[in-house]
Every structure is written in structure tokens, then in C-alpha cells.
């Protein structure tokens, strides 16, 4: 029974006014239904950028789409990861901003080195993007043990930081500003519901209940 799709912030606001946990238990279905309605009415698909310029955001979005590509299910692009990163760099990941600035410069240089006629990473063909990004990722791995080969800033810092932030933006609870409409959770098979009842999956479907085996209660 996975019938609830509440937005947590909204239902927590309602929860704050609840008289008791017992009340909450009794009223849960109506409460989460109201919360879901409120969430749908309030959500915004295109938040404003606060740190990146539009050009920078286009490059970052294209890079995040290499880490988690779109396909039959949503990828970083559909989850709004670039907006998550933009907000994060304004707030709790602000110390990473120089890493992004250097990383964007280095990505441009790598693009120019590998494909001189291409204006920017985001303007490259999908095939070329893959080659450029492979260089960036490989360089990051190489730098763990040896000297860097590509432009400064195409560094372990940038690839690793971008990767972690992309994963955050794709899979965070939407309250955290990413995973728009739970597309990240849906892509990995996580039901976005907030409460569940057993059986949860395949193996516990026909579980008969815990039974002692012969001699089980005897002391070892």
C-alpha cells in the first residue's frame, strides 16, 4: 500500500499544528492528501539562477547530463540538477564555487584542444561531449597518482565535486531543491511515497512469519 505522495515540507507544517502523534496517526491519510494538493499548487519548475550566468548554467547542465544522462527515464537535466547546484553554491556548498569557476574554464580549454571548431562543451555533438567528458574524468583518475596532463583545473576536484553534486541534485529529497517531481527517485525504482506497509518487495511477499527451528530456544 503505497498510496501517499506527500510533499514533506507541507505536511510537516501541518504536523507542527497537530495535537499529538496519536491524532496524526488517525488523520494521516487526509493530512497527506491536503499536503500534496498544497505542494502541487506551490511548486515552481524554473527557479531563477543566483550564481551561474545563463551561459554557465548551460555548460554545467550539459556536464551533469554526462554523469546522469537522460534516456528512457529522466536524467540530471530533467531533475533540475543545475538549479540545485546553483542554489547549493549560493548556500551550503559555497566553498566549492572556485572549483566550478576553474572547472568551467578548463572544460572550455579541453573542448578547444580536442575539437577546435566547437564553440563550447554544450555546443558539441553528443559523441564529442562524451569524448571531452571522458578526458575530464580520466584526467581526474590519473591525478590521483601522477601529474596532470590537461589544462589546469580539469582536475580531480572538479570532476569529483561535480559528480557528487550531480548525485545530490538528482537524488535528494525534493525539499532539498533537486530531484524535481521525484524523477531521480523514480529512475532508480524508489517509490516517492512517504510511508509503506509490508510486504515491501519480492522476497517478503509470502513470508510465513518467524518460526523457531527445532532446538532453537535451547541454550547454545
Amino acid at each position, binding site marked *: 500500500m503505497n498510496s501517499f505522495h506527500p510533499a514533506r515540507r507541507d505536511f510537516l507544517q501541518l504536523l507542527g499544528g497537530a495535537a499529538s502523534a496519536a491524532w496524526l496517526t488517525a488523520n494521516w491519510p487526509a493530512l497527506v492528501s491536503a499536503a500534496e494538493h498544497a505542494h502541487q499548487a506551490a511548486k515552481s519548475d524554473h527557479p531563477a539562477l543566483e550564481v551561474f550566468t545563463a551561459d554557465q548554467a548551460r555548460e554545467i547542465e550539459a556536464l551533469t547530463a554526462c554523469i546522469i544522462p537522460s534516456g528512457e527515464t529522466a536524467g540530471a537535466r530533467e531533475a533540475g540538477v543545475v538549479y540545485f547546484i546553483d542554489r547549493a553554491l549560493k548556500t551550503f556548498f559555497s566553498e566549492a564555487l572556485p572549483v566550478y569557476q576553474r572547472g568551467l574554464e578548463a572544460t572550455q580549454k579541453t573542448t578547444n584542444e580536442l575539437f577546435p571548431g566547437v564553440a563550447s562543451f554544450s555546443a558539441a555533438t553528443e559523441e564529442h561531449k562524451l569524448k571531452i567528458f571522458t578526458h575530464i574524468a580520466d584526467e581526474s583518475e590519473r591525478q590521483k597518482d601522477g601529474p596532470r596532463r590537461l589544462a589546469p583545473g580539469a582536475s580531480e576536484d572538479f570532476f569529483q565535486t561535480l559528480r557528487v553534486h550531480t548525485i545530490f541534485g538528482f*537524488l535528494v529529497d525534493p525539499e532539498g531543491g533537486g530531484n524535481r517531481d521525484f524523477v531521480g527517485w523514480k529512475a532508480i525504482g524508489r517509490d516517492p511515497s512517504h510511508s509503506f506497509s509490508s510486504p*515491501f518487495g519480492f522476497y517478503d511477499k509470502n513470508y510465513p512469519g518467524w518460526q523457531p527451528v527445532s532446538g532453537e530456544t535451547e541454550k547454545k
Partner: protein
Amino acid sequence: MSRPMVTYKTSDEVDFVIIGSGAAGGVLAKELSTNGFRVVVLEQGEYLREKDFTHDETKVFVQSLLTNKVNTHPITFRKTPDETARKQQAVLYGSCVGGSSVHFTANFWRFHEIDFKEHSKVGDIPGANFADWPISYADLEPYYTKVEWEIGVSGLAGSSPFDPPRSKPYPMPPLPVKGNGVVFERACRKLGYHPYPAPMAILSQPRAGRAACMNCGFCLGFGCEVAAKSTSLSSVIPMAEKTGRCEIRPNCYVHRIETDKNGRAIGAVYFDAQRNSHLQKAKAVILAANGAETPRLLLLSANNQFPAGLANSSGYVGKNLMPNSSALAYGIFDEQLNDYKGPAVSRIMHDFYELDPKLGLYGGGGLDARFDFTPISFALSGMPPDTPKWGAGFKQALAHNFTRTFQIFCHGTSLPVESNSFSLDPDVKDAWGLPALRMTFRDHPNDLKMMEWMQARALEILDAAGAKTKWGPPVQEQQFAVHLLGTCRMGSDPKTSVINADHRTHDVKNLFLCDGSSLVTSGRGQPTMTIQALAYRAADRITALAKRGEISA
């Protein structure tokens, strides 16, 4: 709903000031205020309520909503005493009302009889500072039962042949079994082991005005917004406040225990949220600040009378740190487990609790089947080492594995080693200019060997369970601790322990310590149950001393 709250002036000499509102501090506050004493609890963190809890990892993990903040409270780490420690988040503990009980996984094993007398049984172990407890399992049993019934523990009595004796069954049935529990149980039985329903400090049924678990799956690291997790915040602290004699005072960073010329504690000095300093006067002081901050506070309280730190005539304050050893094994299965639903653990086994000495290993451990990942932590660290790090292959692996993976967690003994310790860093200061917490730690070689042995058994279980893919990350020396045990150990001899069996410090008669630091051995992991049982017992002992006039005299 607002709770009744008494407030005291700092100049009021209350009966007890308790430092810390976590697993032990919450129990002590409830018991002592119920017994008629006036109590102030000083908590370093904020007073968050259930409505403040969230599943947003950027708040919970990145911004440390519930835990210690290393930007203002830095920590340093080194492996051995001859190294210079470097800044590192080596310790994680709860920093909010309810302490670490707010974010814990809620595994609630009792220690076994052997844990209290193992030194007598196996003798000295080279490199370890091994000792028996001054109390036995039988002394603690009534208090284990009290924990189960008062804070709320789900489980099935008699389901493990290895369990120690108990005087009452659990107050409520086990939580629902998960896919990992079913697979683990079948595999263990195939191999002749004895899996059983995990005792968990999570309500399987509504109780005392609290809701039953809704199986949201966000237990480890998160606060429970329906109060089904049996934290101090949701269980004993409301009871303490209801007495009208207990004030929970948040945002108080205690940095000194003040003593008078007779060597008696007169209260706790703290910075409030505005960084103003106050002395809360009290007839007696109880430190329940956890196994890292309790010894640090004693060391910070050094003065002319106690130059090595308060209650440290033995030199044992901060020593013998035991974080419990651990190892992991992972398996991926054909069908969907969906183990992200429900509490992390539903089946455990204790067949290896006391290993056969013929193996050449000391101690033992417990194994549980679990899934304690969030989607983010799974993507970062839950997949096989050869998984692509990005691109379509990465996404495909995530989509396939997230619902089909579980772990077997091996929990085990940490031997006490004297040089493994918490101390004051001589160079690094916190945001108030006070010496930072320094951790010195290197696992006893036995603990690493024992974990390798345990991990091999876990991989065998995954084989028997039919895992399609399995792997075990290499067992490594630990550099991160959440179980903060043994650092002000209990004992009868003032030369080799910090507190006596009543939790009273040997050196300062109206100063008591009760938290993970009190433990003499580490059990096999999952220490919170034992910390809370000790707190209930300590409250009885302290109450008896106070009523006989033996504290304020």
C-alpha cells in the same frame, strides 16, 4: 504541542545539573526529576521537535542539522601518540536535544553476561588494557527491562538461543520483516545458524501517545517525525518536563565544571547562544555529554587543585577508547528487495557473539542484514567497486541495484588500548578559543583480524542466500568513531578507573559520569541500550545517595 517547562535561574542551586540530553542524560533527567529533584539539563545543540525533522540530506548531513558541527567544534585525528594530529571529522555525535539517540539506527541489543566478566575468563591480552566490570549482567538486567518498557523496544523474547536471561518479554512485537531479513534468515538457517527478529528501539505499535513506525526508511542519520523512534527526545524527556521540576536548556556549550576550595563541584559554566558565559549552580553535577565530550570537559576543567583535569587522578580520563570494530559485505539479488522501505534492520544473528578460542581470536560479534542507505549515499558508496562512475552504465547500475542490494553488517568487539584516547589538541582551537577534541586511535590487531574473519562468514551467508554479485570492502584501520566508549571507565580501583559502580567519580564526590565513557568493555556493538540501562541504574544509585545525604554533605 508545547510542553510544560519549568525554568530556573543560574543562581538557583538546583539539585542536579546534567550536561547532555542524549541517551543517558535524558534518562537521568526523567528519573531524577520524577524522584523529586530539581534538575537543569544543559544541551549543546538546539531543541528541535519532530516537526523540524526532514529527509533533506543537504540539511541533515551537509549542514549537520542534528550532529556536531566541525566548523565551530573542530576535531583532530592521529593514529599514534607520536604523531601530530590533523583536522579531520573523526567523531560524529548528536548535537540536539535527545543527542545521538535522535539520529541512531535504533538497534537495541542487550550486552551478554560474558561482556561484564570476559577478562576473568580469557585473561590478559597483549596490547590491551583489559578489565572486568564492577557490576554484572544480573545487576543490570532489571534496568534493561525498564529501558525496553519505558522508552519502547520491539522484539521477540526467546527467539535467540544466545540471548542472556530476561525477566520480562518485550513490550511489543518485532517490526515487519524486510526482504533482506527473509533472505538472511533462510541463508543463515541453511548454514546452521540462528537468526532472529532484531530488537529495535522503534515502535511497532502505537504507544504512549506516539505513532507506530510508518516504514519511511529514513532512520540512520535522521530524526523521526512521527516519534516512532524511541529517542530520548520522544520518550523520557517529555516525561522529565512533565514533572515540572526539569528544565531542558538548549544551546548551552558547557566548557568547565567549577569546583570550590574543598574540591567539590559547584556547577557548570557554559556559553549561551550569544556567547555569554554563565555558571549554573547545582548541588551535584552529572556529565552525560558522550564518550568524547565528557572526558574533554573534565580535561578542560583542570585547575590548581586538579592539574591533570577533573577526576583524573588515575590518568584514565579519555583513555581506552573503544569505537567497536565493523566490517561490511554486500550482495545484489535477482528480484527486488525494496529494502529502502522500513527500518534498516529486521533480522540479526549472534552465533559468533563468543568465538571459539581455538580460532585464535578474542571477542566476537553480531551480524545483521540491513539497508541503511539513502538514495544519495547508495549512489556514492553502495555499488560494486567496478561500477562505472558516470554515464549510462552508472545510471543503469543505480536503477538495477538500488532495489536489489543489501548489506550484512558485522559488529564486533573493540579491545581497550590505553593510547587510544580523546585528549585536548595543543594547537587547534574551537570557535570559542578552547582546545579542540583530539582523537588518537589505532585498532588492536585482534579486532582487525576478527573483522576479517567475520566478513568472510558474511560473504558465505550471501553465497548461501543466492546473491548474484557479492563483495566486501577491505577491512581497514578505523579513523572515524560514532560509538564513543570506555573513556572514563567504571571500576573499583581508583588507580585504574575514573568512576565507581555508582557512577560517582573517585576524586570528586558530587560529580557523576554516565554515558558511553562509563563502559569497561565494548560489548559487540550497539551500545545505546546498555548506556540507557546504566543510566536508569545510575539514577537509582544517585537517588539513594542523595536521600541518605551522602552527596551534599
